[in-house]
């Protein structure tokens, strides 16, 4: 089998999440492929728009639920193109690629999910996996977003703000731009929603650093601040996991676009990652 060959998948549902992001639900045409497709939260696939190109995108649905879902932001030529697709159209999918989060190692511990903007997409996979399996102590979700209109999976977030505690899930939201909807949301959940950046959400939160793992995904600028906040609280670098982005063309460590590091350690984001610990970041220059 040619590893560059994608499987045909049909778009069975498209949901508009924000003005820039759409959620695509896909099912593989081949039944065997559909049934055999398993993955870990944090892994990604390559979407093949046949005749136009390929792009990597992380899986945003949990492995506990089928069919698979991809949250795609209109950001470049190909993503603009797929946004014109309709339900019933088909694309190619190959993968899953990357290492994913080692969640089996984290069972029984607290999960601190820190998401910024589109970083919510891969962490949503972890979030629902953790809720569905119930194998974790407590799930924290700290989500920083631009404005109310930019909240990804808004209905799910609001649902969790309301009923999260029942599911062992503690959700907090920070927004940057004040709009009437945000103020309304803040009034409703004064303890959980505030104006500010994602690190502001840590204020007043206590968690057992010896029994917690942090999982981070967001824009490049966010990592430094979030990691500092976590280290200050005493979380060890080996308990800080982050999922990173690069220009992955092949997904299997051949094309060289996602190579980072120096003469002593070089890593491929696509196959050595995209999930790395803070230890990796300390020993590999250019990772974050």
């Amino acid at each position: 089998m040619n590893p560059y060959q994608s499987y045909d998948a049909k778009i069975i549902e498209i949901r508009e999440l924000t003005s820039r992001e759409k959620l695509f639900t896909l099912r593989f045409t081949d039944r065997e492929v559909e049934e055999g497709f398993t993955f870990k939260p944090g892994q990604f696939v390559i979407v093949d728009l046949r005749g136009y190109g390929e792009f990597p995108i992380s899986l945003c649905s949990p492995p506990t639920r089928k069919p698979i879902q991809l949250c795609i932001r209109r950001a470049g030529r190909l993503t603009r193109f797929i946004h014109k697709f309709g339900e019933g159209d088909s694309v190619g999918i190959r993968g899953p690629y990357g290492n994913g989060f080692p969640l089996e190692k984290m069972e029984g511990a607290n999960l601190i999910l820190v998401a910024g903007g589109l970083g919510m997409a891969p962490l949503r996979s972890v979030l629902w996996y953790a809720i569905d399996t119930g194998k974790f102590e407590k799930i924290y979700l700290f989500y920083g977003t631009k404005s109310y209109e930019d909240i990804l999976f808004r209905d799910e977030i609001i649902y969790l703000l309301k009923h999260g505690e029942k599911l062992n899930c503690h959700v907090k939201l920070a927004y940057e731009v004040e709009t009437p909807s945000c103020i309304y949301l803040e009034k409703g959940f004064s303890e959980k929603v505030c104006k500010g950046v994602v690190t502001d959400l840590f204020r007043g939160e206590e968690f057992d650093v010896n029994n917690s793992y942090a999982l981070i995904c967001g824009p490049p600028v966010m990592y430094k601040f979030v990691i500092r906040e976590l280290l200050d609280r005493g979380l060890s670098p080996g308990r800080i996991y982050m999922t990173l982005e690069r220009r992955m063309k092949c997904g299997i460590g051949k094309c060289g676009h996602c190579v980072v590091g120096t003469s002593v350690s070089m890593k491929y984001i696509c196959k050595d990652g995209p999930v790395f610990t803070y230890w990796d970041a300390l020993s590999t220059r250019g990772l974050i």
Partner: protein
Amino acid sequence: MRYVKLSAENFSPFFEALKELGKIYGPVKRNSTYTFVQVDNVKELSLDYTRTILPPKKFFVKPRDKLFRLKKENWEDIKDGESFVLFGVHSCDIHGLKILDKVYLGDPPDPYYKSRRENAFIVGISCMPDEYCFCKSLGTDFAMDGFDLFLHELPDGWLVRVGSVKGHEVVWENQELFEEVTEEDLKHFKEFEEKRAKAFKRSLNKEGLADILDLAFNSQVWKKYAEKCLGCGNCTLVCPTCRCYEVCDNWIRAYEAVRERRYDSCFMPTHGLVAGGHNFRPTRLDRFRHRYYCKSYFDPSAGFNCVGCGRCDEFCPARIEHVRVLEEVREGLL
């Protein structure tokens, strides 16, 4: 390893016999440079060549490589399964292919590269270094494997090292062309190798190089050379171990498209660019330093990603010398 001798008068028949294996590509002089092209007659070959512009990687990772053809909404594999002979490959380029093997044959193997590797018959040839070569200091001046036959020049012919089963088969089937190696031949072989070892003018001090470079991340030397560098990417295109590629889909007819990959270079500003406009290596300094780090990455199981062929120096329009940059970075730190 098995050693046989090919006398000078049997060279041409040997070349003809190789045609059984497929098309033969060998070094041919074009103006002042050399290139690997298809050769029909032994007279066309320039076996005393220094280096070709593009290394033999162009036969395995092609500058433009068609992967799939889109027909009726489905991709069809494009296969090229022809056997061929690469005649007259230098030791450094054989080592270059071995480095590419690590990447392309690693799990999961690249099917295009793999089939070309399996279909290739590689005949190595001994060479004399010129002012750009520094392969000796990297240990890539002599190939112990990675070839089928290796020809070492003798005063009256060639000492042939047989490096693979396919090589054995060729020698077996053409027994009449080969003879046993004599003590005198071995003496000549040794003399040549000694003479060659003394001919190197340039060497790279690899002592602790990987660590030194890592420590010298903020060295001013990177900045100095990044300002001199034109960012053209020549060095990456001609490098036998550079293998970054870009993939693009092209419509060739109204209902037919091909997906092809082509050489990319980490010197191009788009190399680290992601959708949305963020660039992970925005400046020329970032990109320049990245290439040196990539080439000087020390893999405990394979060594450095550089084979010292000297192409990046010879074909650099800004006259930046690989060894010199690394030496200056080292000096700047110590």
